[in-house]
């Protein structure tokens, strides 16, 4: 099993695996998203408190969960790259950053639209929303730092350190509804014990979450190929890879 891990440190191997994974991940994502959308929009019954407005959950929750997951992936890849000096880690982190930032913007936007009918306001400076906004700033900071250096490898390492330091925000976002009095509701899925949602509403949500995850995997793999190519331009295996 460990040989597989060692192989993952090799740029041509990662390039090949990423290229192969894309169609499967995209196909799976399409299936999961289709089922989730149809079941979520048409089949799931309206919520007794929020009525039809609750359906925004089907894009808000997956995008918010993904914004945290992608940051964790980015931080983990950065830490691996810094500690074991595996350059592929920098490629993964660099590929993940813009995807994560876009999901964070989506989470903030959909949350804002959901907040207007439910709480009466498009925005509130409450712990969950504020920490999610800070997450967006961290993504932007990591991307800006990476591009601010003449030497790309130095930019990679600086951005990797910042990404690793910023991981403290991820548990803050998740536990903010527990630690403080928040306008935002508590956790319904990612917690200990049974989820506090009926099946007909839960299954489309899980499917959307899975769909978003698979979509992230697909887009990450596409970007990762580009990032690996950019970092390994001088290597001989690239000749074969760009033949077309």
């Amino acid at each position, binding site marked *: 099993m460990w040989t597989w891990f060692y192989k993952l440190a090799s740029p041509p191997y990662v390039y090949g695996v990423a290229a192969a994974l894309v169609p499967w991940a995209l196909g799976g994502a399409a299936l999961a998203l289709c089922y989730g959308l149809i079941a979520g929009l048409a089949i799931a019954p309206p919520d007794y408190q929020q009525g039809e407005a609750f359906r925004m959950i089907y894009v808000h929750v997956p995008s918010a969960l993904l914004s945290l997951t992608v940051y964790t992936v980015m931080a983990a890849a950065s830490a691996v790259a810094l500690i074991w000096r595996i350059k592929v880690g920098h490629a993964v982190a660099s590929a993940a950053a813009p995807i994560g930032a876009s999901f964070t913007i989506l989470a903030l936007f959909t949350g804002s*639209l959901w907040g207007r009918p439910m709480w009466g306001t498009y925005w509130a400076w409450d712990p969950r929303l504020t920490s999610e906004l800070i997450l967006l700033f961290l993504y932007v900071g990591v991307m800006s730092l990476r591009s601010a250096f003449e030497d790309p490898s130095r930019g990679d390492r600086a951005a990797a350190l910042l990404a690793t330091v910023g991981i403290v925000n991820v548990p803050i976002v998740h536990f903010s509804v527990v630690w403080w009095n928040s306008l935002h509701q508590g956790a319904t899925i990612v917690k200990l014990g049974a989820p506090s949602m009926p099946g007909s509403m839960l299954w489309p949500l899980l499917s959307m979450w899975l769909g978003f995850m698979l979509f992230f995997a697909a887009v990450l793999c596409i970007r990762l190929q580009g990032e690996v190519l950019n970092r390994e331009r001088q290597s001989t295996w690239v000749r074969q890879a760009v033949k077309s």
Partner: protein
Amino acid sequence: MMNNGFWSMGGYGRYVWPCFAFAFLVLGWNLWSARRHLDAARLRARRELQMAGIDP
């Protein structure tokens, strides 16, 4: 299914549909941007190989 209630979403339609529309946009942007990034990287690699005299 495509009746009045579906599109108005119990009166919340003007919040629900922009949500899904923006989600669709974000997913689409991700795919487009990633594809563009990969194509640019391949182009850059090919150009460098050509300049070094190696024809890919």
